[in-house]
C-alpha cells in the first residue's frame, strides 16, 4: 500500500531529531512535547486537522519559529539556535511563495545566488532542476504567467536545487484541483526517491499522507496521537480519534458486554455484535464501536448474525456504490459495495468482528 522502496541515492542527511518540542502562542500551547526521529531518506508526513500544530512543528524545524522548549538536531548536532537561512533546508510553501518580481529561472536560482555560487554553475543546476520538474521551456516566464500546477513545480525545483539535506513541505497540494493533486503527488514521491531526499510533509489529507509517507505522524491539539507506518495507522488505529480521521466513518455508541482477550461483545439498540477491543474497556461500561464503510458487508435480508436495515440512499462512486442504510432507532450505517441495491431494499449488514473496533468513549 505505502511505497516502502527506499531511495536509490544515498541521502545527504543521516538523522533528524526533534526533542520535546513545545511552542506556545499567547499562553496556549500549539505544540506540546513533540518528539520525532527521522533517518535519512525517510518520507515523514505530519497529519492532522487544521490547528493541530503540524504547521507550527514544521516552522520550528525550518527555523521560522523559535521553540519555547526542546531542540532540533541534525546528524546529532543541535541547530535550534540557527536562523532559517543558516539551516540550508528546502521548503515548499502552501501558496508557493514564488517571488513575483523574478522569472522562473531566477526564482529557482535564488538559493544558489545568495550562496554566492558562480553564474555558470547556477545556470547548469537551475536547468537540471527545471528538467527534473519538467519545466524546461518556461525558464523565462514570470510566476504570474504560470498555471497553478506549473507554479507548484517551480516551488519544488526551487526547494531541491540547493540539494538540501531536508525538504519541508507545508500543504503543498492544497491549492490544486483533484486531478493535478494526484499527478503532483506522484511527482513529489518520484523526486523524493530519485534524489535521495529526506522529506517532512505537512497535510490534512489522510489519503495524501498514507500514500506518500513511509511514516505518518498524526497530531491532535499539539500532541502526537499516533505515529507509525501508513499500514499500522490504517489497520490498527490507537484511538477513536485516529480511527475517525482515517476513515472509520461508522460510529455506534455501545454498551460493553463480555470481554474475552481482544474480543468483546457489545450491545446497542437491541443489536448484539462482536468486535475487537481497543484500549481499556470495562464490562457494562460505555464504548464506541467503529468500522469503515468498505468493511460493512451488505447481504440479503434475514441472513443470520446480521443487523436488519433498509437502504436509504445509494450513491454511485465510480468503482461501486456508497449506501446509507437505516438500521432503525436512528442508527445509520454507511457501506461501500460493488453490488447494486435500490433505495428501499431491505438488507442485512454484517460487521466482521476483526474489522469492528471498539474504543472507550472519549472523555475529551
Amino acid at each position, binding site marked *: 500500500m505505502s511505497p516502502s522502496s527506499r531511495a536509490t541515492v544515498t541521502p545527504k542527511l543521516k538523522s533528524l531529531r526533534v*526533542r*520535546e518540542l513545545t511552542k506556545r502562542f499567547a499562553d496556549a500551547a500549539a505544540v506540546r512535547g513533540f518528539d520525532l526521529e527521522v533517518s535519512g531518506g525517510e518520507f515523514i508526513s505530519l497529519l492532522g486537522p487544521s490547528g493541530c500544530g503540524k504547521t507550527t512543528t514544521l516552522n520550528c524545524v525550518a527555523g521560522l519559529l*523559535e521553540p*519555547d*522548549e526542546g531542540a532540533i538536531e541534525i546528524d*546529532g548536532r543541535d541547530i*535550534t*539556535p540557527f536562523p532559517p537561512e543558516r539551516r540550508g533546508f528546502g521548503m515548499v510553501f502552501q501558496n508557493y511563495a514564488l517571488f513575483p518580481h523574478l522569472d522562473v529561472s531566477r526564482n529557482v536560482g535564488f538559493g544558489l545566488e545568495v550562496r554566492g555560487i558562480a553564474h555558470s554553475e547556477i545556470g547548469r543546476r537551475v536547468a537540471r532542476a527545471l528538467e527534473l520538474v519538467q519545466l524546461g521551456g518556461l525558464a523565462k516566464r514570470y510566476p504570474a504567467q504560470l498555471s497553478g500546477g506549473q507554479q507548484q513545480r517551480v516551488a519544488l525545483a526551487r526547494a531541491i536545487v540547493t540539494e538540501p539535506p531536508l525538504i519541508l513541505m507545508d500543504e503543498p497540494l492544497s491549492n490544486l484541483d483533484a486531478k493535478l493533486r494526484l499527478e503532483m503527488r506522484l511527482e513529489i514521491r518520484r523526486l523524493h526517491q530519485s534524489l535521495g531526499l529526506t522529506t517532512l510533509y505537512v497535510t490534512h489529507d489522510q489519503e495524501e499522507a498514507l500514500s506518500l509517507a513511509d511514516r505518518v505522524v498524526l497530531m491532535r491539539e499539539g500532541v502526537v496521537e499516533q505515529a507509525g507506518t501508513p499500514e499500522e495507522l490504517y489497520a490498527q488505529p490507537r484511538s477513536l480519534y485516529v480511527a475517525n480521521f482515517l476513515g472509520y466513518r461508522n460510529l455506534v455508541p455501545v454498551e460493553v458486554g463480555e470481554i474475552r482477550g481482544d474480543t468483546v461483545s457489545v450491545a446497542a439498540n437491541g443489536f448484539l455484535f462482536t468486535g475487537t477491543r481497543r484500549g481499556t474497556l470495562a464490562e457494562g461500561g460505555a464504548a464506541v464501536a467503529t468500522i469503515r464503510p468498505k468493511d460493512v458487508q451488505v447481504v440479503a435480508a434475514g441472513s443470520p448474525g446480521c443487523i436488519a436495515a433498509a437502504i436509504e440512499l445509494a450513491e454511485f462512486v465510480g468503482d461501486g456504490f456508497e449506501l446509507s442504510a437505516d438500521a432503525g432507532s436512528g442508527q445509520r450505517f454507511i457501506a461501500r459495495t460493488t453490488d447494486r441495491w435500490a433505495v428501499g431494499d431491505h438488507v442485512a449488514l454484517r460487521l466482521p468482528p476483526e474489522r469492528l473496533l471498539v474504543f472507550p468513549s472519549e472523555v475529551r
Partner: protein
Amino acid sequence: MSVAVRRLPVRRGEIDRGAIFVYAAVAVLVLVVGGILVSVVLDAFATSWFGGWLPDGFTDRWFRAAITDFDLPQILVATAFITLAVAAIGLLVGVPAAYVLARRRFRVKGVVQVLLLLPLLLPPITYGIPLATMLYEFRLAGTAAGVIVANLVPALPLVVLLLTPFFEQIDPNLERAARVLGASPLRVFTRVLVPLAAPGVLAAALIVIVRALALFELTFLTSGADSTTLVVALYYAAFAPGIRPSQQIDAMAVVYMATSLVLLLAALRFVNPTNMVVRVRR
C-alpha cells in the same frame, strides 16, 4: 545521550534595531509636531509670551477677540456648510461612478480612469487659477457655491479612488443572488450594495471632510468675504503679522486645530490610517 529540555532565549536576546528606529522616529515626530501644537495652544491662551519657556500669564481674551474680530461664528458656519456639501455631492456623484468602475468593463474605461486621476496628480494652483477665472465669469467667484464647486474637483476623484477597491471586494455573487431573487438593478443597488458599502462610504466621507477642511489653495483662490473657511482665515491672519498679536492668530489656529483633531478622532474610529492617503493601483 541525554539532552535536557531547556528554554532557549537564543535569538530572542537579539535587539530589535528596527523597533528602536521606529520609536526614535516617533519620538522626533512627537517632539516636533507636539512642540508646534503645544506652543500654539499655550500662546493662544497667553497674556504675553516674551523670552521665557512659558507664557507670562494666561487669559481667554484672544478667543473672545477672535469671535468678534474674525467673525468666527460666520467662518465656522461657512466651513461646516462647505465641507459637508463637498462631501455630500462628492459621494452622490462618486459612489455610483466607483461602483461602475469596480464592476463593469467598457470601451473608454481607461480614459475615464485617467480623467478621474488627473485632478489628484496636478497641483491645485494649475487648474485653480483658470477655474477661479471661469467662476468669475459665471458670477460664482467669492460665493459658497463657487468654493464648493472648486473643492469638488479633487474630492470627487478621491471618493472614486477610495471606493472602487471597496466595491471590488464585495462578492459579485451577492448582486447576482439578489437579481435571481427578483430584485431590479436599482433595488440591488439600494438594498444590497449601499448597505454593504456603508462602512466604506462613511470612511470616504470622513476622509473627504478632513481633506476639504485642510485643503487651502482652491478655497483661497475662489473664496470671498462670506465664503472664507477656517484654513483660509487662518492664512490671512498669519499672512499679516504685526497687524495682530500672535496670540490672536494662535487662537484662530487652536479653533482650526480642535476642529481637525475632533474630525480625525472620529475618522480613525472607522478608517485605517493607511487609507487616509490614496493608494494608486494599476
